[in-house]
């Protein structure tokens, strides 16, 4: 059937900011789907307030509203645009929930918008577990029996009914905290009690546990003609019990017979038909390893993280095709662009093994609980492909960028600890398993403890055996067959280098002598059955090379940024994608390497040549040699890529843009300070110390407060602000970092951030971001306003001059990011990043300056046309951080110099307050503005009390709760206090009766568990009460007036305004 002719304009709801469980995959899916709609001549109106995405780029949609994802703002947009249809299944849970709320509010009907794709009741059935289970029982498909209960007795009674073991899932706890599995009544007594206590609403779900069963996923497509196909199935290496998002996942399934594969295939198509899904759907199934029995775990009737993975794993663009189905096409009418020959009704056949490994934020959060369970904790993931599982796994490990390149971690564990350690799933279990084998534990023993299928364990055993064989030789004596086998199974050159204490050159030269090199093969959806039109590539050491490289044409390699992690998010994918596109526009062949399956940069049509490979030196070198590229661009792939600049150039690879020595000049602290001295730009006084005593002396010399950080990096991990010797000493006792440490003077002042483009001489500064929070809160975690509202001309001039001086001095070519702090008359430079930054996508969008394109041109030697600081835009953009603390138990949400946020939103308006409001209240149910009579809980440190003086009037008319000290202080200053609370628990109780609208809590010493403040903040996160830990943020929150919403404008309107102003 051809497409619906009456649908001319479609509203697409995006997924908003990146949070754990809802990451870049929705940018990839959303962007792809919007383009698929546009090419049908449909006008696409997009609502998404995530400014770092490709999805919100001008070429992706006709109209882009970077507006809050609330019913109010959506209604306003619908009223204004009057779309014919609305497509919510691309926006993850956020998009779906919003669609449901819009429908419930009667808005969809009132404006008679047609809901496209999967029908609404299906969405409800899919997302609402109770309804889903009821329906499965109706169609005779098994689901684990479950019941929500509020008392231990109820739990025990129900468990008796369904029999043990049962899994306990507390409602609304952090990272599934307080849940667990009970094998008998005695255990359930315990677990249930704990769970109920942990749950803010004292409610738990009791469910038959199928922990340890095989967790299998199917990605299904269905069209309105009831045709169903499987895009691919996937098997979780970690059995049921570990969230699929936290499991190592392989595609296709490895341990299912065809009978089982087809059985579950039929179940999947039966379920998706019963649901009436139109488009893509993800189905999770638990299969008993010892029988044909199975249970359905859940369905996601929309594109998802798994569908992104399935798309990249097979080359079947699920989102694109879902969009086509949503406007009426049938699967047998849509061509798969990868082959350009087969239709979307062809089930992909793959001829390699895909491994997905999650990337967890525990390196940033040492305090966090690392155990993996039913709640997802990973921020991102890597995907690797090869012709055998061992190589696929090892490549995946190498792609993680966690400082290891092999299935080997520095562990000092006794055999006992090790044997214990592998029982519970954690981010490091796979490494422990390998170590256990090294120490002689058998596959059977490990299987008994982990329930990981022996198939996977045998593969790990094979890796360990190869290690052992290699170790029995020297580099001189090791036989070729063995080396060949090691490479075939994915061993890294670096692993051999370390094993034999030789140089990487030695290793690579030996390959050259032997005439060995990796072969590259195609991802083509059809296992080579048909010719492929736009395939992408992966390397293997088994077999022939298939990839023809073009000759004569100029070629540039753009390094991607790997898995999404805190501090290196989707913004760098945005930059990589734009770099590739700019190169193409310049008639240069764009080669891209990345390993993140969630992103647009790994979409089949972004680069000319896409290599799905680890971003490790050797893998990059291999592609450089294979493609014979003219050079590499490292500025766009975040720190991942920048860190490769030096080793690559040492291997004789040409690096475009800012030279390696210049990069060093700003990243090596001593060189950096010399640079600033030379340019006589104030820098932070700091002293490097080697002992506790030295540290104390330094702090006294510099005067508290001081900021302490490990020396080997500027910024980065482990930074704290300390106010006195007591805090310093306790920090030194707790810190995991060893001396030397750096003690910096903590400069309290306004922080500003600049992104500039430089061509080696001239510098263009599109604008300056001003942080709401004073320095001390990581730039990634602070709210920031553009253009900077409270800078005077002199300050702007100085900042611009500093930027120009630094850029010129280091002969920067391309992008440069500078963070400064303004203290009185002086402006200090905190940090210079010789690369793209978090703010580049935002500034590019709101100023209309194509920063990445200009940076690419600059790196290729073109000169900038316009230079200097550009005129302010006539509207305000506020960037607001978004945190995922709710998924991570043990993590303190208090703001500090260490970045904690996972994503960001933007608020646009002609008034600052309104823009702030949009950035704070960015989503339904989050951070509503205060209204008279609202309850507010306050607990201030002494310093904060001082500051609040004179600003207290703003609190009048609010119902105030406070801790004793704060209460006394407020009363002194003539404010009525409703109640004095001393325990976090009391806040819970209060909240049950009178909703607490917000909490203001300025930490005394951050990140200290067990303290009242820490618990208070945990409760706040649990109960989803906005908790302000910085007075600055709180002040702006107070400025936001309820009901003060400007009418939503599409980005172009703002930009056109700008041009008018400039003329």
């Amino acid at each position, binding site marked *: 059937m051809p497409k619906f002719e009456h649908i001319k304009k479609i509203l697409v709801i995006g997924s908003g900011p990146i949070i754990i469980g809802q990451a870049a995959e929705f940018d990839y899916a959303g962007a792809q789907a919007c383009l698929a709609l546009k090419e049908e001549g449909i006008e696409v109106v997009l609502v998404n307030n995530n400014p770092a995405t490709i999805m919100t780029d001008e070429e992706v949609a006709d109209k882009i509203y970077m507006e809050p994802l609330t019913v109010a703002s959506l209604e306003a947009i619908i009223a204004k645009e009057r779309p014919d249809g609305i497509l919510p299944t691309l926006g993850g849970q956020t998009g779906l929930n919003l669609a449901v709320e819009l429908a419930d509010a009667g808005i969809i009907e009132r404006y008679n918008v047609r809901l496209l794709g999967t029908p609404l009741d299906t969405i409800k059935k899919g997302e609402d577990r109770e309804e889903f289970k009821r329906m499965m029982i109706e169609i005779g498909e098994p689901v684990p029996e479950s019941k929500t209960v509020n008392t231990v007795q109820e739990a025990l009674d129900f468990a008796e009914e369904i029999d043990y073991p049962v899994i306990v899932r507390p409602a609304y706890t952090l990272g599934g905290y307080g849940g667990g599995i009970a094998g008998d009544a005695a255990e359930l007594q315990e677990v249930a009690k704990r769970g109920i206590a942990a749950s803010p609403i004292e409610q738990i779900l009791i469910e038959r546990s199928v922990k340890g069963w095989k967790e299998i996923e199917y990605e299904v497509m269905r069209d309105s*003609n*009831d*045709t*169903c*196909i*499987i895009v691919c199935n996937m098997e979780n290496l970690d059995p049921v019990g570990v969230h699929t998002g936290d499991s190592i996942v392989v595609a*296709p*399934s*490895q*341990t*299912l*017979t*065809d*009978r089982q*594969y*087809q059985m579950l*295939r*039929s179940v999947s*198509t039966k379920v998706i038909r019963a649901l009436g899904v139109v488009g893509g759907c993800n189905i999770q199934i638990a299969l008993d*390893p*010892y*029988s044909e029995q199975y249970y359905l775990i859940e369905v996601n009737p929309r594109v998802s993280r798994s569908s992104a993975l399935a798309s990249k794993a097979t080359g079947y663009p699920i989102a694109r095709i879902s969009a086509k189905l949503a406007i009426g096409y*049938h*699967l*047998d009418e849509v061509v798969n662009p990868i082959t350009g*020959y*087969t*239709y979307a*009704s*062809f*089930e*992909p*056949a*793959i*001829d*390699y*093994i895909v491994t997905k490994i999650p990337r967890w934020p525990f390196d940033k959060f040492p305090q966090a609980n690392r155990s993996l369970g039913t709640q997802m904790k990973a921020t991102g993931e890597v995907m690797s492909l090869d*012709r*055998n*599982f061992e190589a696929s796994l090892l490549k995946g490990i190498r792609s993680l960028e966690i400082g290891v390149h092999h299935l080997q971690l520095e562990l000092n564990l006794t055999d006992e600890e090790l044997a214990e350690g592998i029982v519970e799933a954690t981010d490091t279990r796979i490494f422990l398993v390998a170590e256990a084998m090294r120490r002689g534990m058998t596959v059977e023993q490990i299987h008994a403890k982990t329930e990981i*299928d*022996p*198939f996977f364990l*045998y593969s790990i055993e094979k890796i360990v055996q190869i290690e052992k064989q290699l170790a029995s030789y020297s580099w001189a004596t090791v036989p070729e067959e063995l080396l060949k086998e090691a490479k075939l199974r994915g061993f890294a050159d670096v692993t051999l280098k370390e094993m034999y204490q030789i140089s990487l050159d030695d290793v690579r030269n030996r390959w050259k002598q032997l005439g060995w090199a990796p072969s590259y*093969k195609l991802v083509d959806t*059809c*296992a*080579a*059955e*048909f*010719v492929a039109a736009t395939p992408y590539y992966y390397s293997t050491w*088994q*077999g*022939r090379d*298939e990839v023809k490289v073009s000759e004569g044409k100029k070629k540039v390699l753009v390094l991607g940024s790997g898995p999404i992690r805190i501090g290196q998010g989707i913004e760098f994918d945005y930059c990589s994608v734009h770099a590739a596109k700019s190169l193409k526009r310049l008639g240069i062949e764009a080669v891209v390497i990345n390993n993140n399956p969630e992103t647009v940069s790994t979409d089949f049509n972004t680069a000319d040549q896409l290599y799905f490979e680890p971003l490790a030196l050797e893998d990059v070198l291999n592609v450089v040699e294979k493609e014979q590229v003219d050079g590499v661009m490292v500025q766009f792939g975040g720190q991942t890529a920048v860190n490769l600049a030096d080793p690559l150039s040492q291997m004789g690879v040409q690096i475009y843009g800012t030279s390696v020595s210049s990069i060093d000049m700003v990243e090596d602290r001593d060189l950096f300070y010399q640079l600033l001295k030379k340019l006589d730009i104030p820098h932070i006084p700091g002293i490097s110390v080697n002992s506790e005593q030295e540290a104390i002396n330094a702090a006294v010399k510099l005067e508290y407060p001081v900021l302490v950080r490990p020396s080997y990096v500027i910024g980065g991990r482990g930074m704290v602000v300390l106010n006195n010797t007591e805090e310093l000493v306790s920090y030194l006792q707790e810190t995991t970092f060893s001396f030397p440490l750096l003690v910096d003077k903590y400069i309290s002042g306004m922080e500003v951030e600049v992104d500039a483009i430089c061509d080696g001489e001239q510098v263009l500064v599109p604008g300056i971001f001003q942080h709401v929070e004073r320095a001390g809160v990581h730039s990634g975690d602070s709210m920031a306003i553009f253009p900077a509202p409270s800078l005077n001309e002199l300050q702007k001039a100085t900042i611009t001059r500093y930027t120009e001086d630094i850029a010129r001095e280091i002969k920067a070519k391309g992008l440069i990011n500078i963070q400064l702090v303004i203290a009185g008359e002086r402006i200090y430079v905190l940090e210079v990043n010789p690369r793209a930054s978090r703010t580049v996508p935002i500034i590019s969008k709101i100023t209309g300056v194509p920063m990445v394109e200009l940076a690419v041109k600059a790196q290729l030697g073109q000169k900038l046309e316009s230079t200097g600081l550009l005129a302010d835009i006539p509207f305000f953009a506020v960037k607001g951080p978004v945190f995922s603390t709710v998924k991570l138990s043990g993590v303190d949400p208090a703001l500090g110099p260490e970045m904690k946020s996972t994503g960001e939103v933007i608020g646009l308006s002609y008034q600052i307050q309104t823009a702030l409001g949009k950035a704070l209240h960015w989503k339904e149910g989050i951070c509503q503005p205060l209204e008279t009579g609202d309850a507010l809980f306050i607990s201030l440190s002494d310093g904060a009390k001082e500051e609040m003086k004179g600003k207290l009037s703003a609190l009048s008319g609010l119902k105030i709760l406070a801790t004793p000290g704060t209460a006394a202080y407020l009363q002194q200053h003539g404010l009525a206090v409703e109640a004095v609370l001393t325990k976090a628990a009391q806040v819970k109780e209060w909240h049950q009766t009178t909703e607490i609208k917000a909490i203001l809590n300025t930490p005394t010493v951050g990140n200290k568990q067990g303290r009242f403040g820490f618990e208070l903040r945990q409760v706040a996160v649990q109960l989803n009460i906005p908790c302000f830990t910085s007075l600055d943020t709180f002040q702006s929150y107070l400025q936001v007036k309820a009901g003060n919403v400007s009418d939503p404008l599409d980005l172009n309107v703002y930009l056109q305004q700008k041009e008018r102003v400039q003329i």
Partner: protein
Amino acid sequence: MKGYIVLSTGDIFEGELFGDQRGCSGELVFNTGMTGYQEVLTDPSYAGQIVTFTYPLIGNYGVNMLDDESIRPVCTGLVVGNLCQTPSHYQSNNTLSEIAEQYGLSGIAGVDTRAITHIIREHGLVFGKITTDPSELVPTKPATGQVAAVSTKTKTKHSGEGPHIVMFDFGYKKSILTALLDKGCAVTVVPYNTNFKEVAELNPDGIMLTNGPGDPKEMLPHLPELKKIIEAYPTFAICLGHQIVALAYGADTDRLPYGHRGSNHPVKNLKTGKVYMTSQNHGYMVKESSINTKYLEVSYINVNDKSVEGLTHRYLPISTVQFHPEAHPGPSDTDPLFTEFIQQCQAIGEKNYA
């Protein structure tokens, strides 16, 4: 032991031999299924052929008692990427290489099966030889007389309450028999060359023409007899059976460039417009242009290459499919076709009595 697979195109791949070390030769074909190697290697349609699996890990779940499509492996040889010697599955009784040894099946592992697939895709008809001596020549004569070789020599009756189906064994997959028996039929399996009189004596309610190996035109001598039979009883024909029916009504068959072998082939029902995922295994096809539309009409086509996937007789209860509704390996989307056939047999059976 180290060995080679030598191709008629001159390409040589080195690998490790498994199973019967003496090697073998035959037409080289590829199967794109990601599961189902046990069903494939026991599928009689592969008689005389060396099967290359495009999926690189073979043997992961071992070999079990349930999934044989005939009593023993039938294909001539196996070419695999990585042979799994440590399978993991609760039903597994043997490793693949144990089975290969036990039944004298020659295989070679550690080969770039994607490269071989590529070569077959480009050259079409390719022959291969699994051997220890790469200098040996590759015989390039297609195997003939395969049907006679694999077909049963005797009649075997399987009882059941439902209609009585006489099934012509051109090299049938066990799953076709199972599909009929599971749906209550009584089935008599008969040799491929059984004549009308013998069939009539069995007084069947319906006829099933099964899949089988080789060039359908080898069956030409038997067509007149077979035509008499299928015109006398409701008939359902699969794969080679489908080609035979087409030939019987004057159509022509031809070689596909490089066959359809896998579990992911979409076919479209031209009446309903519905699309189904099917399991396929055929190197020949019915030429659409040659079909005598006075008698036959096309019921299914392949969504990708638009080739003929099924036929129905305009007046008589004869229907055929090129694909494999019995699945194993592959999806069972089209299993209802058996039920339709059985209902047809019943309906007509009743008419005859009335």
